[in-house]
């Protein structure tokens, strides 16, 4: 990894260089909530000043740009008794992600393990993932952030460039040639000992700000032991089975597929739709049998996939601790409380 620094005003120049020829997606303020707090979202940006560099966690992750909620996997043209299939990976040009936090970069790294580096990579994801340029940015932990507990508070790979605000200037980590070449057009300096010290200080300060945490010690074992625990019923009674937790989760990738015929019968399509293991028919199979008709079981398996099954397969959990699921859940179900309750055997 290469380290550099540059003066703050250089960042706008970098944006202009990159945005001149590329599609840029970054955090913008989308609206205000009932307490007049900004609601952030990842959107296409055309002006540097629209990017909210100090944004706090977006409600929805950047997932829709690489795992769209709805995506046609194939379309069919039908003529008499003949049909022709076409496949489009639904990406027409690279996307520059401007300002992803460490958790969201780590979420991509986790998705890669399943969708890119597995036996059957998913080309729809791969095509988009391979055409990304990612600029990471440092963040301030919010009361719901527990990324540190998940080892996701810092990103070691999965980005091109990561910038950290050191007050007077930015500290930059460079991972790729592309990033290096862009930076050649700016006035940069090599990072000196004093910059390293400032950076480490910043990291230390961040560490101290975390209030939410989960204890992952022996978690896979504990989950195995507590499979029949009463707490699952308690959380299940609360859950609305609305699926929002998965929809806002940067690492959930489950989907359903539907085939539809156009009304003129001259075309058809196969559409993928992101799904959630908390919704009623997630485990319903052909013939109508539902393996998980009970709400508490569905909720339990969401936790088992994230914190047990995935750990067994990949030696890390399928959760980056971004806290979005707990924030969105109207029933107030949060990862930290659920995990804590499994350990103590009581919801309270």
């Amino acid at each position, binding site marked *: 990894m290469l380290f550099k620094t540059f003066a703050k005003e250089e960042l706008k120049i970098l944006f202009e260089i990159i945005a001149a020829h590329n599609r840029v997606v970054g955090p913008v303020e989308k609206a205000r909530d009932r307490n007049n707090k900004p609601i952030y979202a990842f959107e296409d940006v055309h002006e540097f000043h629209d990017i909210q560099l100090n944004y706090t966690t977006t409600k929805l992750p950047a997932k829709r740009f690489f795992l769209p909620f709805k995506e046609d996997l194939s379309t069919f043209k039908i003529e008499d008794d003949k*049909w022709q299939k076409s496949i489009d990976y639904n990406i027409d040009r690279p996307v520059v992600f401007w300002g992803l936090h460490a958790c969201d970069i780590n979420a991509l790294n986790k998705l890669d393990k399943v969708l890119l580096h597995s036996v059957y990579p998913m080309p729809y994801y791969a095509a988009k993932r391979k055409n990304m340029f990612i600029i990471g940015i440092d963040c301030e932990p919010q009361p719901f952030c527990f990324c540190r507990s998940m080892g996701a508070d810092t990103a070691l790979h999965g980005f091109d460039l990561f910038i950290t605000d050191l007050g007077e200037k930015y500290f930059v980590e460079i991972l790729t040639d592309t990033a290096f070449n862009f930076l050649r057009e700016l006035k940069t300096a090599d990072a000196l000992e004093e910059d390293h010290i400032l950076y480490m200080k910043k990291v230390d300060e961040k560490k101290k700000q975390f209030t939410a945490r989960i204890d992952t010690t022996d978690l896979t074992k504990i989950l195995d032991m507590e499979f029949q625990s009463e707490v699952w019923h308690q959380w299940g009674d609360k859950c609305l089975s609305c699926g929002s937790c998965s929809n806002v989760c940067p690492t959930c990738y489950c989907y359903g597929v539907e085939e539809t*015929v156009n*009304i*003129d*019968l001259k075309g058809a399509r196969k559409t993928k739709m992101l799904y959630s293991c908390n919704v009623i028919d997630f485990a319903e199979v052909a013939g109508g049998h539902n393996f998980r008709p009970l709400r508490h079981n569905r909720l339990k398996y969401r936790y088992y996939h994230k914190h047990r099954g995935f750990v067994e397969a990949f030696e890390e959990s399928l959760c980056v601790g971004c806290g979005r699921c707990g924030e969105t859940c109207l029933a107030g179900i949060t990862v930290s409380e659920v995990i804590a309750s499994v350990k103590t055997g009581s919801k309270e």
Partner: protein
Amino acid sequence: MKTNGADDKTYLGIPLYRPRVAFFEFTSCEGCQLQILNNEGTLLDFLSLVEVVAFREAMTEKSDDYEIAFIEGSITRDDEVERLKKIRKKAKVLVALGSCACFGGVNQLKNRFHDLIAVNKMVYGEHPVNSGLVRPLCDIVKVDMQIFGCPVKKEEVEKIVINLALGKSIVLPKYPVCMECKANENICLFEQGEPCLGPITRAGCDSWCPNNKAGCWGCRGPADDANVEQMKKVMKDLGFSDETIMDRLECFGGFQTDEKNGQR
């Protein structure tokens, strides 16, 4: 009402069997039927998939020879009961079209009043009409399929009719509106202090109301396994009054309590 060439319409070279369908309305605003008619872009294609033999809102000639009956509206009078039973005898498949037919719809709100005669007088004054308790179709006859919504979503009806014509299975969403709302990337209305029944209401409308910044009123009735009690609690904890919550839950009749069902 046949369109040219409709008789030899094929799908993948196989001739299409066009079921004979009839549309009927009972106590309703006819908005659901209008939904079906109101997209000229696909109407002709729609009509070439089925053979419409009766559709008062769209045609004058009609026939009694049909296989599928789409029925809009709730049942409020004795003569409606008789008419519905006759249709049931003729139809192979009876479809409840829209929330009035499925669970009474907005009309059933009047069932809240104990004295329906006084209500009749209040509404119609000196010219009372014969109109009693509001009942969904399934109270009187066997219903084979329900298409929810007030009004129904045209795209959903089209999909159902395509699948009927092609002999494919028809599956309505079992999950709630929130799934569609999140996919549409809406800001949750609760964030902005508005109530919404999206977490417990059956999807299929593509989160029509939240897309337009209005909370869901539950017009499509409960999703499978809807956690209504918890939803009431969530709304109460967020500061909404019992009245606000009940107004929403009772509006279309989909969330009728068992107590109420007993009353019918």
